[in-house]
């Protein structure tokens, strides 16, 4: 009744090809952005912003990065954690070399370092496919993790082997380091994520995205219709690593404030992979839903007993949370193997014919 595009006539190609052709979608998006940019900073506690929302946004961006590679271009990769690490270490080195440069700019620039490394490790994709490629990217994961530990230059010869984020200010407002307020960091992360998501959404429905999808669906056919495979695959690796690199740099500079090499290990790669499997392969909104599910749900589950005034030992709570999240993952994969994004699509379809389904 409310969600129907009947009567919304498109009179130009621009209107027809808009990111959100349906009026209700546009309104919904404006409301979400308004809530995210205005309501959240004004109302949420620093715990929610710091421990739930900032990491959720950062992981969403990393999930988008992997989704571009895996969901759109069909290249299996397990190097996400390492590519995030490249972004983080690149940003750390850059801000050490150029302490006065704008840190937000450096975060974006460090994405290019990650893109370069990602392209190099994408080279095996020209010869191998599927699970074999995954093993190839696994090599990237281990090799880069090794670099983060063994090359002292990367962490400025710190005794602890960890990178510690210095205070950096933009226009006099501290953005990174202990003095940066959660709200400042949240707004920066949000802006970067929104802009990059918008870019990604245009990328995947344009020429490049169609090339990626053609390669994903059948690379021989794609080659026959004139798509240059090497270029397309490497581009997918570069763009994907760029997104992951920016997410990694944000993770250290705008969220954690310090990171050990262990923060970018294989588990991180798996975490992001699970996010897009649960959220939905080849779907941008799925990346967000997946990140919310994998990252947000456990934290929320942990605060449930407290809200109801039940006191449970911290370890029991942890075990309960593992069990519940595990059960939910299986539950959702059974009811919808195509991920939560597909559920969202079905819900939209139902809403369209509501209240008179046929």
């Amino acid at each position, binding site marked *: 009744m409310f969600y129907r595009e009947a009567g919304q006539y498109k009179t130009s190609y621009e209107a027809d090809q808009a990111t959100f052709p349906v009026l209700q979608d546009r309104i919904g998006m404006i409301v979400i952005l308004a809530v995210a940019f205005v309501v959240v900073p004004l109302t949420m506690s620093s715990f929610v912003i710091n421990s739930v929302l900032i990491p959720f946004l950062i992981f969403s961006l990393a999930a988008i990065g992997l989704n571009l590679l895996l969901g759109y271009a069909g290249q299996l990769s397990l190097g996400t954690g390492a590519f995030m690490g490249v972004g983080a270490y690149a940003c750390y080195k850059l801000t050490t070399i150029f302490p006065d440069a704008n840190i937000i700019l450096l975060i974006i620039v460090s994405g290019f370092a990650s893109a370069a490394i990602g392209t190099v490790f994408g080279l095996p994709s020209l010869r191998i496919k599927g699970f074999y490629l995954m093993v190839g990217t696994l090599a990237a994961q281990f090799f880069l993790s090794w670099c983060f530990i063994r090359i002292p230059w990367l962490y400025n010869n710190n005794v*602890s082997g960890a990178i510690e984020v*210095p205070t950096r200010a933009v226009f006099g407002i501290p953005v990174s380091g202990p003095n940066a307020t959660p709200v400042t960091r949240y707004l920066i992360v949000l802006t970067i994520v929104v802009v990059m998501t918008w870019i990604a959404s245009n990328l995947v429905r344009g020429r490049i995205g169609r090339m990626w999808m053609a390669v994903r669906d059948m690379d021989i056919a794609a080659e026959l219709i004139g798509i240059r495979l090497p270029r397309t695959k490497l581009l997918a690796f570069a763009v994907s690593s760029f997104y992951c690199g920016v997410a990694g740099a944000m993770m250290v500079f705008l969220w954690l*404030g310090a990171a050990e090499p262990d923060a970018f290990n294989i588990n991180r790669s798996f975490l992001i992979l699970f996010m897009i499997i649960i959220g939905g392969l080849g779907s941008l909104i799925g990346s967000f839903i997946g990140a919310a599910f994998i990252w947000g749900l456990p934290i929320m589950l942990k605060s*449930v007993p407290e809200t109801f005034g039940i006191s449970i030992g911290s*370890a029991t709570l*942890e075990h309960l949370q593992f069990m519940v999240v595990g059960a939910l993952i299986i539950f959702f994969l059974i009811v919808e193997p195509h991920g939560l994004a597909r559920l969202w699509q079905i819900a939209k379809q139902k809403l369209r014919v509501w209240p008179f389904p046929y």
Partner: protein
Amino acid sequence: MRIKMFGAACAMALVGSAFAIPAQAQDSIFIPLLSYRTGPFAGSGIPIANGMNDYLSMLNERDGGIGGVKIAIEECETGYDTNKGLECYEKLKAKKPVVINPYSTGITLGLIPKAAVDKIPILSMAYGLSASADGNNFPWIFNPPATYWDGLSMILKYIGEKEGGIDKLKGKTIGYIFFEGGYGREPIPLLENLAKDFGFEIKLYPVTAQEMQNQSAQWLNVRRDRPAWMIMWGWGAMNPTAVKEAAKINFPMDKFVGVWWSGGEDDARPAGADAKGYLTLNMNGVGAQYPAIQDIMKHVVDKGKSQTAKDKVGENLYNRGVMNSVLMAEAVLNAQKITGRKAVTGEDVRRGFETLEISAARWKEIGLGDFAGPLKVTCANHNGHHAAYMQQWDGTKWVKASDWITPMTDKVQPLLTAASTEYVTKATGWPKRTEACDKAS
């Protein structure tokens, strides 16, 4: 479809419930404990958490808290994971804790810059950043009674003694097996310096978190390199594995020395009689014979108010947890004395720590006579660089194997000052100390 709707509704309900954090009553002192009873480090984490929790509970039961004010205790599970630890910190911060115990070097490193901003002192008892012993640069961080660097110098002193003089180390090979992370890497610069000074050779055997339970590769290398001594910086599941592997390759156990975090009963016990002779540093007494620990038995464990099994009370890491809580309780008591307030804040407790002094007589008064060496913290020296002793596994329990060993302060201090200065210069905009120094109460 109905099931799907139900799932969606559940998810929505969850989202709503997460954003409420109950307010904390102000008539108590809030001491959160970042503990880990799950994951690969639980073997070490559980006794520590039990010890810390039980001592504070005992103060609540026996004395009605500290200075008449109840202690509100809350554990937050970190799983030794830095991200989760920071999440815990953010969550607990809202309830105004008076002190934070990260119990992980990684989490400590992440929290050090935040301490001064949030005005919550950090007690990283004999772990964390060695350089944070410098109170002038790190007014909010406390790491008594000794740093990792002190510990390493004590181990080398002990080795020197056994070899018949520290100069006898010349030409020998000493192996260092360590947890690949901030914790295990910290002693390496000092080890390298000492190797140069005394002319011995070092071999490094890093163990990453993933291969903690499978160290055959490292110990194969040990067998090939044949070091005269092995030093270990291990934690969690790494310790018992290393002890077992060392026994398997027939490494002489009385030449295998661990730091104080590698000396839990459960670290040596799995190897049983084969671990006989294994040495570790220690700074607290082992056993349940101390009056204060008997009080814990009486007021907490026997009443079923603890998660501790009765036979685990008095084990080494349990007592380490007790010692950790004693330091906090004493600092709070000090803070109450200095400020005259009962419900103290984090800022007051920081002052309490800076004037902390536990003499042998005071240890006795607490009910822990001869439990630990006298301990003193000052404004400039947040560590004290106190002595520790060597304990040895006799096949079933730990026995004291040496007198108190003092650290080589002349070797440690220059490195510490340099590291502290370096940390502060690298972190541009590091705040200068503005906190005034209290006279000892």
